[in-house]
């Protein structure tokens, strides 16, 4: 009985702190929609339709000659790679002397509904790679693809191997049938033809639904409880709001690309079986013969390791490396863990081959 009353002062104390923090918070922090994400300066060096390629300003006097082109995912925006200076993937690569380009796929509009893999791989990505080669005066780039961007980068490397010196596939979506996530459970039976026919582009709202069923209670409740508990920690709140802002900004996906994605990867699983065709060209993963570094996360609830790892075994490369990390989908690219464990291995591997 006494034990039950012992906790009462703590609860009252917590409640008072909570009320004080709640009143003080808006006076300390910027309005969420005004928060600026990103710490590394860049120039927009290439634009085509809705896409942009960013070129980050160097942080070292001497740079590695082979540029690194990052093909970001078609879900959410590229900002996660540079969301916080202490967890920035971009900053780490720049500090290690890499010349970094980032492809921002932009926000497709209604008239982009007919764009598919062909345009994304053979036009946009190819033009970006060509541009980076021209700027750096080289014939090949190191190409990194994250998540769905990893799929685009893999398809590109299979179709244009002469332009890719090294391939880095970070949580790529490759073998849809092996994916064990709740997203794939829905995608496998999804009537994508009807969606594209009725709506056109895949609306962000549908993606938000998919996000909401991934760890619904940790991400939907616990995360916000933690926020209220840490309201007096300015650094925590700043980081929290940046991530929230990033999560809330997902663009639509062009209808045709989404259709090819769902059918080709999740429903018919064409890519891993080397049965995929992009712009009448056969995509064989065996054509990927350049050095390849595949990164997967055990706790990835968006792209399960079973979905990404088959790439490592399907490619024709002799020089290949597979790393499995005890973290999650975002933790692999934007966390203290990634700064300590993921990036050092990658930069060491890439420096030797650039």
């Amino acid at each position, binding site marked *: 009985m006494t*034990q*039950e009353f*012992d*906790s009462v002062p*703590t*609860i009252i104390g917590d409640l008072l702190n909570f009320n004080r923090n709640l009143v003080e918070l808006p006076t300390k922090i910027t309005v969420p929609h005004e928060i600026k994400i990103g710490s590394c300066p860049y120039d927009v060096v290439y634009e*085509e339709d809705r896409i942009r390629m960013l070129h980050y300003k160097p942080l070292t006097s*001497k*740079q*590695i*000659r*082979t540029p690194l082109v990052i093909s970001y995912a078609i879900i959410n925006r590229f900002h996660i790679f540079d969301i916080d200076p202490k967890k920035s993937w971009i900053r780490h690569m720049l500090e290690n*002397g890499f010349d970094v380009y980032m492809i921002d796929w932009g926000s497709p509009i*209604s*008239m982009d*509904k*007919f*764009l598919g893999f062909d345009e994304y791989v053979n*036009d946009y990505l*190819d*033009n970006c790679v*060509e541009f980076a*080669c*021209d700027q750096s*005066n*080289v*014939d*090949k780039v190191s190409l990194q693809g994250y998540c769905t961007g990893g799929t685009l980068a893999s398809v590109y490397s299979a179709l244009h191997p002469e332009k890719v*010196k090294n391939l880095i596939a970070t949580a790529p979506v490759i073998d849809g049938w092996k994916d*064990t996530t*709740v997203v794939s*459970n*829905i995608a*496998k*039976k*999804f*009537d994508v033809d*009807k*969606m594209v*026919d*009725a*709506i*056109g582009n895949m609306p962000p709202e549908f993606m938000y639904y998919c996000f909401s*069923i991934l*760890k*619904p*209670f*940790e991400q939907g*409740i*616990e995360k916000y*409880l933690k926020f209220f508990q840490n309201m007096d920690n300015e650094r925590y709140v700043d980081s929290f709001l940046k991530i929230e802002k990033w999560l809330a900004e997902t663009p639509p996906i062009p209808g045709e690309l989404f259709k090819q994605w769902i059918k080709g990867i999740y429903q018919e699983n064409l890519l891993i079986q080397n049965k995929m065709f992009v712009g009448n060209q056969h995509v064989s993963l065996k054509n990927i013969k350049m050095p390849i570094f595949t990164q997967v996360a055990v706790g990835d609830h968006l792209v399960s390791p079973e979905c990404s790892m088959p790439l490592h075994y399907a490619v024709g490369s002799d020089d290949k490396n597979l790393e499995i990390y005890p973290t999650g989908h975002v933790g692999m690219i934007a966390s203290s863990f990634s700064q300590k464990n993921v990036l050092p291995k990658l930069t060491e591997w890439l420096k030797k081959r*650039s």
Partner: protein
Amino acid sequence: MNTQYDDMFDYYKHTSMFWNDMIAMMSSKPSSLMAVGPLRNFTENVKKISQELIEANQEIVDFNTQLVEYYQHLGETWVGAQKKVMSKISEVPQDAEAMEAYKRVWIDIFENDFTQMFDNKAFSENYNKLVSTELQLLKRWNTIMDVMLKSANMPTKEEIDEIYKELYMLKKRIKKINPQKKTRRGKDDSGI
């Protein structure tokens, strides 16, 4: 019972379509007297709207059934998880950390049970049917809107889609004729 239900729907649909067509035919002469203008266009196409609404009836019933099943999945999982929490909570020691421990147990059990539900084949089948029916209703809504737009002499979704398609094809042709890609030759690629 199921056959009877289907028959009732068929009967209702047939009867509605019959009178819909009859009324449209019988009223075609008086409406043609209104010469030109949006109302004339509208009266000529209004039959399409009632047709779509009649066709949508079955889909609305299906949508409701699937929506009920969707919430049933959520509700049953919630109740099951809450029961597990209640049985587990007796093991949590009643001290200053009790609230935190309760929260942890609650979140872990709910997370686990709901993830299992979202991963379940029955859930995904019903969810996809629900979305598919919703999209079918949306298509009917688009058709109805097209009738309204047509009557106001404005471009319909179908016409805009055709323009988008033409623009897309045109851009592809231009890219073929005038490729943006530059040719590079003789470049050194020797590292730092």
